[in-house]
């Protein structure tokens, strides 16, 4: 644990953009948790006398067209967006990943398992051929509009990605000798998967998870924007943007702009975290990072040397 933090700290110094990513994700998470303590106003309380006020000392981000304080709503929104996106993504990884691993394992051999694994791959093809947004919105419509169904929509839409990822991991690991060796040693299929496949798959899956959480937030916001996701007045960045839509055209930019900027920065942060995991996992990029780190250390040492000699 400490080693991981130490590694991240050094990473931050060589590639500041990755540090920025982790910082953003951390900040948004803190906002989600501590929103009730930080927000000056209630996120759903409307002060109809003071609607559409531009940003001021009293209302940092201004007020929207029913008088709700945008700043408070904007920092309450991560609770919804983040929760939905994280849950949906984790679900998609578990669902897609386990099916994918099995599909990879039973892709050769005999009997009905091979057929099933083939059918599963074709089903994944079909799901991925769907226009993503229409698919998500149809899922939400058919299951009833609620937070849970948005989570399910995200899970379904992203499951094929993990399905393919785990399947290719299993297929590539299978061909390696040490897996055969472990099978000879009498380990069951399940144990083989757990022991060999999962550790190797960790890095790409983690990177994908992080990026997907970002996409999940975008999808949630998009669904809410058209009215098929989180319902008003629950604070959510997408629905806030929708509420301020007409106002932008007439010149009151703040109800839509602030939530949009926060949304963009958050998704950006998750993308950076995903990119940093990719960089650590990919051997070529890791070498580059290490050599940059060593260069930094050498420069630091060169600076520190003269002072030692003086003593």
């Amino acid at each position, binding site marked *: 644990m400490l080693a991981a933090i130490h590694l991240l700290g050094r990473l931050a110094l060589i590639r500041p*953009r990755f540090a920025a990513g982790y910082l953003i994700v951390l900040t948004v998470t803190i906002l989600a948790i501590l929103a009730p303590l930080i927000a000056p106003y209630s996120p759903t309380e409307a002060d109809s006398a003071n609607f559409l006020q531009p940003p001021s000392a009293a209302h940092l981000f201004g007020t929207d067209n029913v008088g709700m304080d945008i700043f408070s709503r904007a920092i309450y929104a991560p609770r919804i967006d983040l929760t939905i996106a994280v849950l949906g993504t984790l679900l998609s990884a578990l669902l897609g990943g386990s099916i994918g691993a099995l599909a990879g394992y039973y892709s050769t051999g005999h009997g009905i398992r091979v057929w099933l694994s083939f059918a599963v791959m*074709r*089903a994944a*093809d*079909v*799901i991925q*051929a*769907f*226009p*993503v*947004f*229409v*698919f998500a*919105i*149809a*899922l939400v*419509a*058919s*299951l*009833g509009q609620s937070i849970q169904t948005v989570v399910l929509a995200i899970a379904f839409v992203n499951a094929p990605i993990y399905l393919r990822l785990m399947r290719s991991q299993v297929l590539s690991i299978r061909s390696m000798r040490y897996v055969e060796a472990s099978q000879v040693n009498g380990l069951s299929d399940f144990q083989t998967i757990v022991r060999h496949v999962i550790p190797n798959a960790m890095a790409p899956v983690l990177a994908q998870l992080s990026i997907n959480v*970002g996409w999940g937030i*975008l999808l949630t*916001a*998009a669904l809410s*924007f*058209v*009215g*098929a996701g989180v319902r008003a007045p629950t604070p959510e960045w*997408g629905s806030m*943007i929708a509420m301020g*839509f007409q106002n*932008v*055209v*007439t*010149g009151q*930019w703040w109800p*839509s*702009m602030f939530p*949009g900027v926060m*949304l*963009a920065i958050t*998704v*950006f942060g998750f*993308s*950076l975290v995903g*990119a940093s995991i990719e960089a650590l996992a990919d051997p070529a990029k890791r070498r580059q990072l290490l050599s940059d780190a060593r260069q930094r250390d050498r420069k630091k040492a060169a600076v520190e040397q003269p002072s030692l000699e003086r003593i």
Partner: protein
Amino acid sequence: MRVLTYLAKRLAFVIPQLVGIILVSFLLVKSIPGDPAVLMLGPTATPDAIAGLRQSLGLDQPLYMQFFIYLKNLLHGDLGTSWQTTRPVLDDLIQRFPATLELVTLSLLLAIIVGVTLGVYAARRPNGWIARLSDAYGLSAGALPDFWFALVLIFVFYTVLHWAPAPLGRIDMVVIPPMPITGAYTIDALLAGDLEAFWSALSHLALPVLTLGLLNAGPILKMTQATMEKMLDSDFSRYEVLSGVPQRLVVRHALRNSLPSVVTIISVLYGYLIGGAVLVEIVFSWGGAGQYAVQGVLNSDIYPVLGFVLFSAIFSLIVYIVVDLIYVLLDPRISN
């Protein structure tokens, strides 16, 4: 002759895929609550009228029968009727799909220009400021929500600067749209020699194309940069340098060799954008096919949704087949 057999083989694969897609979407939209008969006749309808309509629509049949009836109608060119527009879905889509296609195609062109140019520059000087800018651009472009970015552009270019027209559709309200030949206002206006309609349509296309084009250039940029770097580092590029070939030619040859990968990503993006332009269509009241489908879902009008999925799937498949043929032209090693 070889091309024909190849096409025939691809089409044979395509049919079951299409049936699969239609099946899944059929099941999906059928599970959307809302009785179409009630929706079509309105709240004042009598139970008898509703029952009668249900029977004529075939809604009293079991689900698998309904599916077969739908497939049978498809083969006759009948995609069902939208109760919102009261017109056949096929007619609605023939009107709306070209609107989406025009928007998406122009956006894709913009994305290609931005993505390939930046990608090539970034590959030539991997440590230069353009490369760093491209990295940042690639990451941020994917993070921005398109519906919000469209709003930003509207605010800047319409509300503040008054350069762009109001985001209310494809053409000025006072201008008569050109005779529909292709369905794309710009092309049809040029074909009819109607310059006023042409400029009006073009000005209305500006902001949505900017939105979609700039935000989707990321994948093209990354693929171009990665492939170009590989090509510039390859043995044959080094040999060209060794033989004294000037750098601009070396880059050109490397680009030529990078085309297959770049074309792949463009084709994937093209298929994706047909459905992915939905939000931009909604923001700009575009009247496109994606917007049509979303309205269908929100109002339990299922045939528009099915029709849109079908159109978009067929379009993607056509794009992939065309791309495969392009590969044969691009890479001499494949044709054997």
